[in-house]
């Protein structure tokens, strides 16, 4: 089974408003994104709010465009381009957060996008816990995840938290178990 199909199947099996930690390897990265955006979200007619702290939103957008995945209902909160002083033209579906340390602003931008598309069900992708852990200590990161996931759950939105297996620590694993309904490994 392909990575994208595996991811889709795992998400399909979840009840609504679930929070899932998706443990994947670096080579599975773009296939996992395809499984979430193209297979799962498209089938369920969900808005996708993609929070990227790993690679600039434009790189993910480029990959999705190559795969001819429709982007009408995909929105990005880009926490990395600003800090990289990127001069790339801003895509209308991308909102910038100055730095991955501004965790409250990430919550605010997610809230903004959900409000902008009020009435539609949503899925929020957090890419990734490992990148966030580079910029934030465990204490504030746990607090952030706890509040964000519970808020999204209350709104009926799905949450998918990426964790790159190569960069996981015990602290990160414990944090994911604490905030997620399920932790699953991509085959």
């Amino acid at each position, binding site marked *: 089974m392909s990575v994208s199909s595996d991811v889709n199947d795992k998400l399909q099996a979840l009840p609504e408003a679930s929070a899932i930690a998706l443990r994947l390897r670096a080579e599975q990265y773009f296939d996992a994104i395809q499984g979430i955006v193209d297979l799962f979200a498209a089938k369920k007619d969900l808005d996708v709010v993609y929070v990227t702290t790993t690679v600039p939103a434009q790189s993910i957008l480029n990959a999705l465009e190559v795969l001819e995945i429709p982007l009408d209902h995909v929105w990005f909160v880009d926490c990395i381009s600003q800090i990289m002083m990127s001069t790339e033209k801003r895509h209308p579906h991308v909102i910038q957060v*100055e*730095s991955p*340390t*501004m*965790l*409250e*602003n990430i*919550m*605010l*931008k997610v*809230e*903004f996008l959900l*409000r*902008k598309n009020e009435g539609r069900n949503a899925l929020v992708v957090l890419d990734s816990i490992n990148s966030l852990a580079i910029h*934030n*200590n465990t*204490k*504030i*990161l*746990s*607090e*952030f995840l706890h*509040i964000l996931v519970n808020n999204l759950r209350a709104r009926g939105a799905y949450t998918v938290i990426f964790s790159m297996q190569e960069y996981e620590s015990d602290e990160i694993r414990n944090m994911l178990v604490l905030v997620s309904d399920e932790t699953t490994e991509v085959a």
Partner: protein
Amino acid sequence: MPSKEREAGSERERCVTGIEGLDHILNGGIPRGNTVLVSGSVGTGKTSICIEFLVRGALYGEGSLYLSVTEPTDKLLRNVIPFDFWDDKLVKQGKLQFVDLPRMYEKLGIDKDELSLEESRLLTDAIIGLVEEGHIRRLVLDSATSVAYRIKDPERIRDFLLRLGQSLSAKGCTSLLVAEIASHTDGYSRFGLEEAIADGVIVTGNLERRGDLLRTLQVVKMRGTQHSRAKYVLDLTTTGVLLVPLLKGGSVSGGA
């Protein structure tokens, strides 16, 4: 009467601000008729909060009045956040009114730099006249500090604020008085009088954390309701003012 029933029975009518996060902090909104000081340094979101309060009020069908002291209305409206819920009809129908205070001074024949007791009372009466005439239920004075600068004398400032607050409250009008303060100052107003007279104090500020600058909001006082006294981070967006809790794990020791 059991205490719980007494509490429920004495629950004051709320003026729902329409700013979801703020209404949550205030346990349902500002108690109707309260005079609230919105205090903060420049660029912290005071005016945006006040404008949203008025626009939401007008959308609920309540007469809403913005008294601008320092910035002409046309300039203010050019620079205000283009709220998704803004409706030009509100202004055309008179539900949402903007008045430049300098014009009011002219009409009242107030041309001196310093307002006498009589002139400050004349100003209060003129504002109350507007409230009565326009069936105003929500008022913003932006800023009370600028008026206070013109009054100068602390006793006369106290008299102006007290009379204005009491008269507005008697009319069931909930008001926000903007207070400009310098950053890193103690107290919530330039003259130290405003916060003592107001029924509520909402403080906006900037919090620097590891080089990041976050806009914050905190309700430090609100008569007539239980409320959160925690600090929140705010964002000014086209969908309105958004608030989330300040993450405690990131607090700077002794920080703002």
